[in-house]
Every structure is written in structure tokens, then in C-alpha cells.
């Protein structure tokens, strides 16, 4: 019963200059436990805002958002965050970063050491425990961020363009990893991306958002994420259905972009 339910959420920002930005308008959705939702949309359409509201960093101007029937009114351990740049604590080692959440809960260090090792294994960082994080590559840093978030056993994982800064090859590996973790842990995941391909590959459900005001423009239910659990991701990308969907969404986003340009000029 720990579904994420959002009812008529509106988010209105007032910039210091006094301009009013309607970042989210009447966003309503329900995400069942264990679902993987990817959110796609041109930049500035309110993706991050939506995620921040789900994480509890922002309170919506109006509307209600609940997780497992409990209103979200602040950050909490049951909702884990993974950021684009990892946001790792560079003064800590890999293991200390992963351990951070458990240490904050003052758990027994002996137990946590074992748990940390397990999670480092899962994300493929065995043996890197004592490495300082600033020595890691971008992909490895995101692995640490994933492990750090997952070790807290959150009900909902929120990822804001987690693979945005990675090169294509690393990106593909990380996509498989995310799918693997999703399958093995059965977590509810919201993943934001600006890559259509990524949204299609990973999303069991895909929301395409439109800007000004930010809203959910279209929703898709897709089989590719489940296929990706067993198949090679590259093969799926060549799948006829996949290509069609990709073209459809791409042209939709192109239209949106054109509309924005038109409005501006």
C-alpha cells in the first residue's frame, strides 16, 4: 500500500524580480509500489521541481502528495535521492559515503561495515571501499551515490538525471545496473532524464511533460524495461516498436520546443 499519490499539485514560483513562474500545474498521478517511472521533457518544464516536491525539499503551492497515505511534508529516509553530479561527500571514502545514512541513524558499526560491503558488491565497487571519492570516475561516483541511497532501504528512489553527465558507454552499463537493482529490490523508482532513449529503455511508465505551465502532457506504458531485464539493451534499441515510439516522442518534443520558440518570439 505504499503508493505515491499526487493530487492536483500546483507549484508557483515567484522570482526575486516579481515574475511568476507556474512550474507545475494540476499534476495528478498515482505510482504503485515497485513501478519504474521515467519523466521526460524539455528543460524548464518542471521535472526537478516535481522531484523536489516528492523528496520533500519543496512544498507544493497547492495540492496534496502522499506516500503510503502519509503526506510528504519534508525530507525523509523513506525517500532516497540520487543527483546528477552524485553530490558525494568528497571528504569521506567510498565506504564512508555509503555508510553515511546508517551512521546518522547511529547503527552498530560492526553491522554496518558488513552491509556496506554487500552494497559495494551489488553496485560493482568491491575493493574500492577505502578509495577517496574524488579519485573515482563519474560512473563510479554514481554507483556510490546509488549504494548510499539504497543502503537506507527507501520505499521510493528519486533520481534527477543520474546519468546525464556520463559518457555513452558508461551510461549503458549504468542503465543495466539500474534495471538490475530495480528488479532485485523491487523499489518504486522515479527517474528523470532528458534522453528519450533512456526514458523508453528504463521506464515501465513514461511521462512526457510540457512546459509553461509544467504539466504531464502524455503518458506511456512500455514493455522495454521488463525486456531489458533479460535482453541486451542494444538489441532493444533496434527493436521496431522501440524505434517507432522513440520517433513519436522525439517529434512531440520537437513540436513543444517549436511552440516555446514561437511564444518567445
Amino acid at each position, binding site marked *: 500500500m505504499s503508493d505515491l499519490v499526487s493530487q492536483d499539485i500546483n507549484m508557483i514560483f515567484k522570482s526575486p524580480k516579481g515574475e511568476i513562474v507556474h512550474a507545475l500545474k494540476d499534476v495528478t498521478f498515482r505510482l504503485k509500489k515497485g513501478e519504474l517511472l521515467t519523466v521526460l521533457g524539455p528543460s524548464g518544464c518542471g521535472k526537478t521541481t516535481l522531484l523536489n516536491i516528492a523528496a520533500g525539499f519543496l512544498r507544493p503551492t497547492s495540492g496534496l502528495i502522499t506516500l503510503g497515505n502519509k503526506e510528504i511534508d519534508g525530507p525523509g529516509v523513506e525517500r532516497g535521492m540520487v543527483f546528477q553530479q552524485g553530490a558525494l561527500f*568528497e571528504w569521506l571514502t567510498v565506504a564512508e559515503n555509503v555508510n*553515511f545514512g546508517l551512521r546518522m541513524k547511529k547503527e552498530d558499526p560492526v553491522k554496518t561495515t558488513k552491509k556496506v560491503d554487500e552494497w559495494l558488491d551489488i553496485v560493482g565497487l568491491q575493493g574500492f571501499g577505502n578509495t577517496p571519492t574524488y579519485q573515482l570516475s563519474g560512473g563510479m561516483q554514481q554507483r556510490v551515490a546509488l549504494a548510499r541511497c539504497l543502503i537506507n532501504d527507501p520505499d521510493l528512489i528519486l533520481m534527477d538525471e543520474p546519468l546525464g553527465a556520463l559518457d555513452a558507454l558508461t551510461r549503458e552499463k549504468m542503465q543495466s545496473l539500474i534495471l538490475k537493482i530495480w528488479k532485485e529490490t523491487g523499489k518504486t523508482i522515479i527517474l528523470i532524464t532528458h534522453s528519450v532513449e533512456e526514458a523508453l529503455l528504463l521506464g515501465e511508465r513514461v511521462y512526457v511533460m510540457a512546459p509553461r505551465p509544467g504539466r504531464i502532457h502524455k503518458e506511456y506504458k512500455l514493455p522495454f524495461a521488463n525486456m531489458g531485464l533479460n535482453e541486451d539493451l542494444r538489441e532493444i534499441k533496434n527493436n521496431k516498436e522501440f524505434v517507432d515510439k522513440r520517433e513519436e516522442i522525439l517529434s512531440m518534443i520537437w513540436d513543444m520546443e517549436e511552440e516555446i520558440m514561437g511564444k518567445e518570439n
Partner: protein
Amino acid sequence: MITGIVTFLVIFAVIGSILYGQRLVKTEKSDAVFGNPERAKGGLHWVVVGSSFLLLSWLYYSWDIAKAFYPKSANELCQVAKVNESLLSLKYLFPIEERQHKSTALIKRENINIQKKIILIQNSPDLKDKDKKLFIDLLNKTKKTIPLLTDEKFLENKTKNKIGELTNRITWLTEDFQKINYPPIKSIEEENKRIEALKKQLGWGATGMEVPPLPESKKGLKFHAAAQELNEISDEFFSMRNHNVAYVTLIKEIRNEIKEYQNELNDDQELEMTLIKEIKKLGQRIEYESVFPPNALNEMEKSIREFDVAQKKEQGNLIYVDAFLFPAGTIVASGPTCAEDGPGRWLPKPSDTFRIFGDLLKPSVGFKMIPMIWYEMMGVNRIVGFILPDWIADIMPGKYPVHSSDGTVKPNFKSKVLDIVTGEFNAFKIPVPTGHIWDSFLRVFLGLVLGIIFGVPLGIFMGLNRFAKGFFDPLVELYRPVPPLAWAPLVITVFGIDNLGKVFLLFMVSFSIMIISARAGASGTQLSKIHAAHSLGASRWQILREVIFPNSLPEILTGVRVAVGMCWGTLVAAEFLAGTSGIGFVENVARKYMQYEVIWITIFVMGMLGLLFDVTIRKIIDKTIPWRGKG
């Protein structure tokens, strides 16, 4: 002796290293196109060249080479300087080092002065015509006294004879001076006295006096004796007045007229009073100046020129020593004493400097009874008494004991606590560092630590909280822009000239720096890190301690590094102002007594300590925040 050896070693080192370096450069010519990283490293031999060169210039410009190879030269140059000093006033009479005869210059000047005064009086609107006429008349008469002095036919025989006598004495001196046995021994007794005094005379350099004044060598004695004779001649010459009957009559007449006029003046005639005084003074100046007829001193001039030539010849190789080994200066005489002039004055000789440095480092010598850095045994009781505040005893239950009628005092719990907090108990002793360097170091350290303890939390608070920033910013900005030393007089008055005042001053310096750097560090924490910590379940306090503080550490430590430099600079200046110990105090005292060796040593020690602080902190920074710049 040592300096001599060092000089040669240094010269060999410079030449050898340059040759070696040249050879290396030649063999490396081949890869010049692509550049050779090895060569860019510099190499030990170039370091040798650089430091040897530095030492060599120091040896040379501080005259230490002269001292090593010609130890008697300073003493001899002193005697030469005495001759030059005695000769100076006589030489000035003639166009030897000047353009004109002194008489010519004087007459020209006095004529101009009188003329100016005449014009001034003529144009004065406040003077009565009668006074004007009288004044101008007086001035014209004064003017007429000049030809009475410069006309050969008025020159009295007495004066002529005196000039002749002095000229002869100079000529004889010139002749005698060049003889081997000059000066003649006056008496055995006096000679013994001279030798006795010589034995007591200390050497050239910082041990004794700057330059030993009594002549030590045969050559020196010669110049010394000549200088004495010349002094007598010169004194006699300048006490002689070229007056004659005609002149004296006229000047008396002028003086009487002035006196008469002055007697009739009223007190309120200030202008007239001033003018008549000035007119009188003009006459007097001519009266006491050495004005002679144009050719009267020709013979004397010749004799002085001859002596000058002779004394230059007698100096022999001393002239070359002076020119080459006393660069940019020489030794000058002033009466019986001699002093170094030029770099020798403020650039101490390496040999003296190293010896004095060694002395200063000796714990038994030190400076002003305090060693530079050493240790002393201190009872633990004193340390405890210093650290624990006395009021601890006051807040203990009970009352302090009162003496009983049999004249004894029975200690109770409260009085025993008092004994402990005031350090009045027996305890073993431990060594603690002392000395000027330690004092300075401790002040910087305490000021810095206090600044960190108070500044960092406040800075972080200000970086996170808008109210704190708004509230404390004006307070900090009110005192921070003021140069710290400007606060010193106030701080010293309030907290005393001793450690407390200085530590507080340094606290003020480091406090503001630490606030600013901690604030920058805290407010620069990326929001995503705080968000991440938040959703990992960290409380506000945990975020502060585990995220914001370590994240600000690079900025804080950079702040510490800046603060150390600032504190060090401020401290030395503060010690200059007041105090009884510390490296700045040493320099200030040395300045008062013109101990240039000590001044240079303190400069060197301060540089080294400053460098040491900076290197240490840099090491600490590299150790504690290896992620700096890589986040």
C-alpha cells in the same frame, strides 16, 4: 682568518659551479629544441652559485673582506680621515675643492645682503623718511668696511707675519711628514703611555668599538700626528682677525651711531628695532668672517696644496684599499673618534653577525637576560595555578578559615582548594620552553587558536543564517577594515603591555579572517549535498557537523593560513610598540642601540619563522583536505 678562507672558498664555488654548469649546458645543447625537463629543475650547482654570490656580496659590501685581509686598514683610514677633517676648513679657504676663494664668496654674499636690505628699507611704507635715510646711510657705511679688509695696503704687518708663520709651519710639516722618522718621539714617558693605551684598545668590529681611533701602525701614527699639528694651525688661523686701524675706526663709528639710535627708540617701535638689529648683525658678520685681500693667502694656498699632494702620496696602497674594499663608503673622523660611513654603517659584517647570532642562541647570554629559545624547569603547581581560575575556591561551600587566638591558622577544605587554584602546593617540575622566539610563537598561537575557536562557529552560523549575517556583519565590518595596529594603543591600554594585550590584538586579527573564511565556506556548500544528507536521515545538527563543516574546511584552512601571516606581521609590530620580550622587542631594542647585527638577525629569524609557519600549515592543509580543488 675564517673570513679569508670563506672568501676564497666562495669565489672558487662560484667559478667552479659556473664552469660546471656551462659544461652541462653544452652537453644538453642537443635537446635544446625539444626542451629538457631536467634542465628546468635548476640543479644544485646553480643554487651554490646563487647563495655563494649572495654571501660574497655581503662579505664585500659589509667590508668583511677588508677586515679579513687588511685588518689594520680601518685604523689607518681613521687617521687619514683625521687629517682630512683637520685640513677641511683650511682647504675651504681656497678653490681646491670649491669653485671660488672663500673671501670672494663671502664678499659677494654680503654685498647682496646689504643691497637687498637697502631695497627693502626704501620700499617700506611704514618707515619715516628720517629713519629710512639713517638706515641706508648706515648700510652704505657697512658696505664701505669691505674694501678696508680687501685692500692690500691696509693689511697690517702683524697679520702678514702671522700668515707667513702659519704657512711656514705647513711647509715644514709637509717636509717632516715625508721623512721616515716622523713623528719624532717626544719623551720615553709619553711613548710608554701611548703603548699602554694601545694595548687596551679593542679591535675593529662589533666586539670593541666600531673603529679603533688610536693609531696602531707607523703609518697611522704619522697621519695622527700630522692631523694634530694641522688642527693647531687651523685653530690659530681662524682665531686671527684681519682688522686694521681704518677698519676698526669705521666699524666703531657705525656701532656708536646704532647705539645712539637704539637709545632713542620707544618700546612700540618694533619695526625699527628689528631693522636696526639686522643692520648691526650685517656689520658683525663681516667683522668675524675671514676676509682677506685677494693675494694675501697665495703662499699659504700653495703650501696646503703641497701638503695635500704629500699626504695622498704617503697613503700609498691605502687609497686602493679604500677605493676597492670599502665600496660606497669610507671611514670618517669626527674629533677624536672614527666611524664607518656607507654600507659599513648598516650592513654588519658576516663574521660579527654569525658570532653574535651564536651568542644570542646561547641560553646563558640571550638578549636582555632572556634567551632566544630555551627551556626552564617549572613546577606543575605554577602551571595548575595559572590555568585554574581563582574563583573556583570562592564558590566552594564553607568559609575561609580565620586565625585562632593562639596565632595559628587551621586550613579547611575551602582554603585547600584555594591553595590548589593559586598554585601554592609542592609538585614536581617539568621543562617548559621559554625565550623571545617562544614568547612570540606562543602569542601568535594563542591569538590564532582563540580566533579559530570563536570565529569559525560564528562564521558558519553567519553563512547559514540570514539573521546572524545581518546582525553580526555590521559589527565585524566596523572593526575589520581598521588596520590592526591602529587598535594597538587602545588594546594595550585596556589589556596591558604584556601577553594579554598582544594576544587580544592577534585575536582581533584572526577572528575577522576566520569569520569571513568560515562564512564563505559554509554558504558555499552545494544545496545538493545538504539535500542528499537530509534525505539520508541526517538531522540539522548532523548536517552542520558532517556536511557543512567539512565542506567549509578548505576555506577555513586557507583562512588560517592568511591569518597566521597577518598575525605574525601584526605581532612583531605590536612588540615594537611595547613589551619586554619577543622577537619584535629584540629588534626594537637593537634599533635603539644601533646594533645592526642584531637587527639583521631578527629580520632573518622572523623570515625563517614566518616561512616555517606557512610551510607547516601548507603541510597540514595537504594532509587534512586532499580533496581540495578536486571535488
